[in-house]
């Protein structure tokens, strides 16, 4: 789509939205993650107690924990969909869940 958005800000945001922009963000993110792990090795840990002090000695612990746990979160949540997901009109008509869809359907017919 080659339309030019009206706002200057939109045009700036469009740069991020392009395939090249996304690729760039990926690389920046990877570099930033690597840098953070490297910096983490050298900084003093004066603000950690208990467990915080223990895990601070593991290089990149917070990064690994963040990556693994958030990936687990998504995978478990997606699996939960099989059990929990129902159609939008499950509670209809005593709910707002399907009101927009209903309205759309009424206006199109």
């Amino acid at each position, binding site marked *: 789509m080659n339309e030019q958005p009206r706002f200057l800000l*939109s045009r700036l945001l469009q740069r*991020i939205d392009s395939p090249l922009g996304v690729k760039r963000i990926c690389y920046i*993110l990877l570099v930033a993650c690597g840098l*953070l792990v490297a910096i983490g090795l050298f900084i003093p840990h004066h603000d950690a107690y208990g467990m915080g002090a223990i895990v601070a000695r593991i290089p990149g612990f917070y990064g690994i924990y*963040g990556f693994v746990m958030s990936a687990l979160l998504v995978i*478990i949540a*997606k699996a939960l*969909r099989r059990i929990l997901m129902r159609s939008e009109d499950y509670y209809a008509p*005593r709910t707002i869940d399907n009101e927009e869809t209903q309205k759309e359907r009424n206006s199109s017919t």
Partner: protein
Amino acid sequence: MSIPPFLFYLAGALVLPLVPKGAMRSLFLSLVPVLALTQFVVLPFGEYASAELFGYTLILLRLDALAYAFSLIFSIAAFLAALFAWHIRDTTQQIATLIYSGVAIGAVQAGDLITLFCFWEATAFASVFLVWARRTDGAYFTGMRYLIFQMLSGLLLLAGIILHINATGSNLFVQFPDINFAAVLILLAFGIKCAFPLLHDWLQDAYPASTPTGTVVLSVFTTKLAVYALARGFPGLEALVYIGALMALFPIFYAVIENDLRRVLAFSLNNQLGFMVVGVGIGTPLALNGTVTHAFCHVLYKALLFMSMGAVLLRAGTTKGSELGGLYKSMPYTTVFCVIGAASISAFPLFSGFISKSLILSAADKQGYTLVWFALLFASAGVFHYCGIKIPYFAFFARDSGIRCREAPWNMLLAMGLTALLCVGIGVFPQPLYNILPYGVSYVPYTADHVVFQLQLLLFSALAFMVLMSKGIYPAGLRSVNLSSDIVYRKWLPRVLLWTWGSIEQFVVSITAPLRRESRQIFRNIGVVIGNEHGSGVMLLWVGVLLVFLLALTYLAR
């Protein structure tokens, strides 16, 4: 003598219908919070405006550090919400908003339990009109469910207060010394409003049902009032640590698969409340300060996120993730404000969430709640995933939905801009906020390890998002609802009740059938006598016979 601030709101609500609709009324609406704020903002701490009722002293205005912090943020939020709703011409919503804000401030400034109870109930009644303001059948029923839960909370509170006053003779609202039956009732009452696990469904049910502006107002008061009440009544109650950890954890799974982005925000509201409840449960000065700071920052960034989604709902007509995408082309300013809100809730350094959440995490670690600490860390990574990335990504980027709409009206942009400014301002200069905290604790959020570890947690979790997205594992938005514990009272209970009622009816019919047959026979015989088959005439005849019989009896009895 100082006037309790809530009176300004109530007086404002009375006068409001006389103010002509339009800019005049909108100005009036945003001036009321400012006027009320001037009443307490420089007032020395103490108790004001007390009254005697049936031998009990009611304290309508008690100002201490805890009440001050909550009153201040409620007032700021009330002003911002009024600005955000500047274009609204709906008198019902305007009056409901004024009363709701006023009584919520009244509740945190109430010095005794009887006054607290009155305001507690009033928040329920005033706020339900914001749900009904959507004016659809679905919103009516949703509002009813919401009201039932709020009333239940009020009833439990009333029962608990009566027992408490009976046992102790004091109606002062201070920390409950021991956890007896009365205290448990009160705790449950607070727990419903605070959306404890299994008592939480009203929140995710009702908040997305309100209007674009109404949800912003709803998100501010009720739950934070409950956090305040917990911090006042039950600081250091250990059970709250685990309840809070559970609250921080389970909503995030729902948030990942939820389609309605305003409901995603409601889930994240619940998750953030979990952090605050953990802080109350730990109960050390650092933890309680953390709860107050987090509540303060949370009101702002949550309002900002709900504002941005409200603007999307107003302009694009929906907040369903499955229908949205590419909105940055039409609403770039809203996009930026939403991203600032998302960065704040994700606790990025230099944003408000960072300087508040770390207090609670540090406190949990310091007191040796290792498992809870890991859980909160997980919840922090999670909140970035489903709220920090998912909300802006699905609404404003992702695939282009083709929706081309206008940017939000100026007043919405102004309200969002001011709120975003506060989020960043507090994140960069946290000291003024730390200065009003109830306990003098010197806390330095910006240390090298804090910043680096938090950034590690967040950026690696962003990396996970990117990997999952590119592999197509990340769940797409689907038109759907997800079952929760509310299925008990929305599906099963009605079904059981209907079945039970049906069975009872059938049973009664089956045992009375022979009887009815007999009586019909008798009546038919009489009907034959008077030539009229069991009509109203038969009834009249019998009434007449009975009356004559009674008359005869009374005559004879003389």
